[in-house]
């Protein structure tokens, strides 16, 4: 990386010197792993989908700090990840998508080789200034079937949370209960022939317990959900931040499916339920094994 000169350079050197040693180590760890990502980058450092590890470095560093020091993530079975294109299917919870950010960090920090997990976002994300750029540089796209197919064909790893917003804003009493699954991911797996890897995320479902979801009020304002938690809206937007629960990722064995992507819903749903059952098993085992929610 080019060294900055002048006052900015001096300031950044000073900032570097003041950083705790572990954080500087984390920075160089990130640089090392960035060089090993298998995604194909062009001469300007971008992949076909506008992802750039260099531009996303600060986001990766922030995620890595949360990953190591806040959620203190443990992974199980990440060595089973197949090379090339795959669909990661995980449970979704916790009011804000820290689970997605941490799963992405996990693939970057712990998988061999490091992978960029591609998120499939909502249509409004590209319309938000700054967020749109950061999302694209970090490898996230609008979740259209065309984009997902192209990513999988390019050998990329796509994260899907088939519970969607139903999962993210589920109530505390429903924790680790999988909500209805969308079917789209299975059609894409059949169309592209990539394996599905279920990932049970344990921890996120307790990070910000939902007591109520005021769906009607949310609809009125065109919001996806309006959760009420012990801290939100009581403490304002800060109340949406998660408690320092420990995250545990349980990666399942890759599942292979064959068949016609255009089959009727019932036939697709049968296969979706196989994935759902596998995920359910991972979550059960993960909850039984853990020593505590925060420890």
């Amino acid at each position, binding site marked *: 990386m080019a060294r900055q000169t002048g006052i900015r350079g001096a300031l950044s050197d000073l900032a570097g010197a003041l950083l705790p040693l572990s954080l500087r180590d984390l920075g160089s760890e990130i640089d090392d792993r960035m060089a090993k990502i298998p995604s194909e980058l062009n001469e*300007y450092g971008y992949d*076909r989908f*506008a992802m750039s590890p260099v531009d996303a470095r600060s986001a990766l560093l922030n995620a890595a700090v949360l990953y190591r020091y806040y959620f203190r993530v443990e992974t199980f079975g990440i060595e089973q990840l197949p090379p090339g294109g795959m669909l990661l299917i995980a449970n979704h919870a916790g009011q804000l998508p820290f689970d997605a950010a941490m799963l992405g960090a996990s693939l970057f920090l712990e998988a061999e080789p490091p992978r960029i997990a591609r998120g499939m976002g909502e249509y409004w994300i*590209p*319309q938000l*200034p700054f967020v749109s750029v950061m999302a694209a540089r970090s490898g996230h*796209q*609008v979740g259209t079937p*065309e984009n997902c197919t192209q990513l999988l064909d390019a050998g990329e790893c796509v994260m899907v949370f088939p519970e969607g917003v139903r999962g993210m804003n589920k109530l505390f009493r429903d924790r680790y209960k999988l909500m209805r699954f969308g079917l789209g991911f299975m059609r894409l797996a059949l169309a592209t022939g990539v394996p599905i890897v279920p990932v049970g995320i344990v921890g996120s479902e307790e990070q910000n317990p939902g007591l109520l979801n005021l769906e009607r009020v949310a609809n009125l304002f065109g919001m996806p959900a309006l959760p009420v938690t012990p801290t939100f809206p009581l403490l304002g937007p800060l109340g949406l931040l998660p408690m320092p629960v420990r995250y545990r990722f349980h990666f399942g064995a890759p599942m292979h499916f064959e068949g016609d992507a255009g089959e009727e819903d019932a036939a697709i749903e049968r296969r979706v339920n196989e994935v759902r059952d596998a995920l359910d098993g991972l979550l059960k085992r993960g909850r039984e094994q853990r020593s505590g929610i925060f420890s």
Partner: protein
Amino acid sequence: MEKILITGISGGQGRLLTRRLLEGYEVCGVDKVPWEGHPRDVEVHVVDLRKKKFEDVIRTEMPNAVVHMGFIRHFRGDEKSRHDVNVRGTKQLLDHCANYGVQQLVVLSSSYVYGAFPENPFYMDEDHPLSASRSYPEIRDLVEVDTLASAFIWKYPHIRTAILRPVNVLGHYVHSMIGQYLRIDRSPTMMGFDPLMQFIHEEDVAEAIALTLQHGLQGVFNVTGPGQVPLSVAIRETGGSALPLPEFLARPAFERLFDWGIWPYPAGALDYLKFPVTLSGKRFVEATKYRPLFGLEEIFQSLVR
């Protein structure tokens, strides 16, 4: 030797194409302005496509093939007359092609007809709807031209008609909107947005047209170049710098300044600085084995500042 008639022959792209085609074809052309210093063996007729005189040119030249690129793509003149020149001019040209035994037609459309939207998937194919008029009504004439030509393919299947939709064209001779924009010292950008953009060199566009003629292609084809970068990289690599403006200021400012005629880009163009319009060029590559000769670096360096 087959004879090719080029509309818009005096423009940068027309001149490049003429030079490229002269090796294997007899070339003539029409334009509303003369081409000073055109090659001696190239006949250049100064006519308006909408006038009877253009019909006479077709009747006497009797070209085997027509390459149609005589469009007004800038906004300097009157909006209504631009629409009339582009749409009615194309309609007249299509009629003459059908009436005077033209065997092959190539229409140079562009990637802009798809429109810039947040929901655009990456690398859209030729079947993606042409929605530009929804957010950028000022270029609806170019969408109509593309649509007229598409209908022509079905109406006259014995005439091999190809519509080419190249991505952002840059180069020394071509006066493209994106080229002008990148030549500004401080190109206004939309703060917080940085869409992926594909580029192609003007010589590769000429090559693509030549390949289309050579292969006798029929149908609609996206034509892509060597690759894509975010807009900010294109601005940097062409030696400019970005002037990021918040949208709530930029949009009304663009509207006013455009209305007063002191700024050449309508507000609808802003969406192309926000959302990506990226195309899949697979169909054209499979049909012609086309490979762009110019890389991104050469493309950016070809913009003389």
